[in-house]
Every structure is written in C-alpha cells, then in structure tokens.
C-alpha cells in the first residue's frame, strides 16, 4: 500500500482551481490511498463550510471524503490518539527551535504537523508514503532549516538562532507540492484537458493559489 498524505493548502489550492478530480484519477491509475488528518479536515471542511465565500470549496472537499476518494486515518488503522500525541511532540519541537531575543518564535500549527505525525507512523509500519504540502515553512524546516534562519534573520533584521539538532527529527520526510502533483497527474494522463499549454496553465494556476513554486521551477517542469 502507498499513501499520499495531503495537507490543507494543497486541497484548498486544487479546490480553488477546480482540479480536485485529479485525485480520483490518480487514485484509480495508481491504486494509492489518499489520507487527510482530522486537523486537515477541520481546515478544509469544518471551518470554511461556515464561511459563505468558501462554502462551495469546502463542500467539494467534503464530497471527496463522502465518495471515499480521500479517507481519514482510521481507514488504515491509525488512530487519532496516535496522531495527536505525535503532533503535539512535533509542535513542541518545531515551535521551540527558533529563537530571537531569547524567546522562541512559534512557526507552525497543528494541521501541517499532523501530516508529519501520520507520515512517521506509516513509515514506522513500513508503509510507503509521501506528504503533499504547499506549506513552505514545514518543507524548509525539514529539508533545509538553515534557509529559514536566513529568511527570518533578513526579514526581522535581527539575529535568529536555530537549533538544528532539534530539527533533525524532521529530516526524514518526503514532500511534494501541488506543482509536482500536477506534473505527475499530467504525465499519468489524469488531467482531462489536452494540448501543449495544459501543463504550463495548470502549474501557473496552482502557483497563483499559494503553491510556493517559482517561475524558474515551472520552466524546468515544463521541459521535463
């Protein structure tokens, strides 16, 4: 079994772009499981469903859950308690690893850390998984934490110190963004539109709805 864990940003992005259907296509083509945590459900369904502007978007995500295109962790025998306890641990680590003026700066929230928690639980069970996340901060603390140190020092005009030892815990995760999800969906024939401009158009669409992919990276993806 392979599991694609989706963070809220990626679902919001695909929903806003009318591209949620690619998840069903990818699931049918590859037979993978697509899982969201309870915290991601809160951010993508429960909360926005009460905001008129985003109600339809939330209903679209809810529909995927109703149709079992995406599932909750209990469908793969992972309990909320397991996830919550590890999420809390990861939150403590991430939010106590960056300091300015001897004070810790809180940088992450529950939903993204719950994705990491689920990934860790699955990896411990030898279940292959990948996290689909547009969230820049989580990706940076996992893959290149020194970049966050540079970014925050530059922006805050003060010395930021980062405890890289604490962040080593986060170095084991695999991430893709909406852009790579779109790229793979296009290559697998999961995007319904056809034509030479489709990949480029879909990549720009996800960029303009919050995926942290640069124009240069889009150019590279177009040529692959």
């Amino acid at each position, binding site marked *: 079994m392979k599991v694609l864990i989706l963070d809220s940003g990626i679902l919001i992005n695909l929903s806003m772009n009318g591209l949620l259907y690619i998840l069903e296509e990818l699931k049918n083509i*590859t037979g993978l499981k697509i899982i969201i945590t309870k915290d991601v459900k809160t951010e993508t369904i429960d909360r926005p469903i009460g905001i008129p502007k985003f109600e339809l978007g939330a209903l679209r995500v809810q529909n995927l859950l109703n149709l079992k295109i995406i599932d909750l962790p209990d469908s793969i025998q992972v309990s909320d308690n397991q996830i919550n306890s590890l999420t809390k641990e990861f939150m403590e680590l991430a939010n106590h690893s960056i300091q300015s003026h001897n004070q810790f700066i809180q940088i992450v*929230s529950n939903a993204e850390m719950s994705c990491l928690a689920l990934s860790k639980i699955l990896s411990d069970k030898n279940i292959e998984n990948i996290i689909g996340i547009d969230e820049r*901060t989580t990706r*940076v603390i996992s893959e290149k934490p020194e970049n966050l140190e540079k970014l925050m020092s530059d922006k805050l*005009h003060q010395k930021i110190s980062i405890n890289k030892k604490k962040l080593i815990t986060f170095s084991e995760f695999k991430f893709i963004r909406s852009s790579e999800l779109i790229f*793979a969906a296009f290559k697998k024939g999961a995007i319904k539109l056809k034509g030479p401009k489709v990949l480029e158009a879909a990549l720009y669409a996800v960029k303009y709805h919050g995926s942290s992919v640069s124009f240069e990276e889009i150019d590279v993806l177009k040529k692959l």
Partner: protein
Amino acid sequence: MFIEKEECIHIIGLLERAKKALLNKDSNILRDLSDQTVHSACNYQDSGSITISVLIYTLSKLVEREDFKKIKNWEEFIKKFNSILDLAIKAINSSNQSKYEKYVEMARTLLQSQISLKQYIQDVFKKASINKGSKIYEHGLSLEHTAKLLGTSQWELSEYIGQKHFESSHIQTMDVKKRAKMAMEFFS
C-alpha cells in the same frame, strides 16, 4: 508571550507617532508604522501587536482614500481613539501587558462601531488582516499558523499570497527535477 522592555519602548514610540499621524491625516506614516509592527507581531505573536498592526493599516486606508470624511465627527472620533492609545501607552509603560491588550481591543471596538461606515470598516479591516497576514507569512511563519494569528482563513490567505511575488532563494530546498522524479516514482 511576555514583551521585553526594549520592545515596549518601541511600541510606545510607535503609538505616539500613530497618534500624531492620525491628527495630521498622514496615511504614508500610518502605513509605515503598520509595517513596523509586523516585526513585533512575528516575534511575540501577542494579540496587542497583531491588532495594532491591522488597526493602523485600516486607518491608513481610511485616510488615504479620504473615506474618513464619511465618519460622523471624525475629529471627535480621533480624540477618543487617541485617548485610548494614551491608556495603552500608559499600560505598556508600566509593563502591564494584559491591560495594554485590553486597551488595544477597546480601540478596535471603537473603530468598528462607527455606525456610518460599519460595513465598510469591517471590509477594510478584513482586507487589512489579510494584508498583514501576508507580511507575517513573508517573515517565515507557516500559512496555517499565520491565519490563526490573524483570525482569518487559510483559504483567504492562500488566494492573496498566490498573487504576491516573494523572494524565492530561501525557500528552495530541493532541486525541482529531483522532486518531480520523486513524485513520478511514487505514482508509478
């Protein structure tokens, strides 16, 4: 989170300048002061700094577009508003953070209760929250965390942030070809 003395002094200076800029109807200074509060909002993430940032930005917009003219008795409003800021200054000066936050909240309520422009102010306030959220996000906080701090939704912030151009060298962590290959292998 406890605000250090040095930052308290900075906040006091900032509020004093905001009072003056309001009296002089100087939208540029107000906007600049609002940007300055973003640093405190990122560092301390206290409700006072976050609300002040949004509040001053909202007022800068009202002044810039001359919409303040639609507020009945603007001069009277500013007098009241500034007197609340004086109380906030007094509170932060005596390191009473909870009282400071209470007065900042009072200033927000005063602005949002201006009947003649109530809906309009709510809209500008909402847009100001998103604008400040994008600035805080730019400083390295996660989108979800930023949305929670600002009391806005991730849906709204994603839409706004997608339109902005952020310097990308610090956020690139893995070669895009490598990540695309990883995606293709996973979906194989």
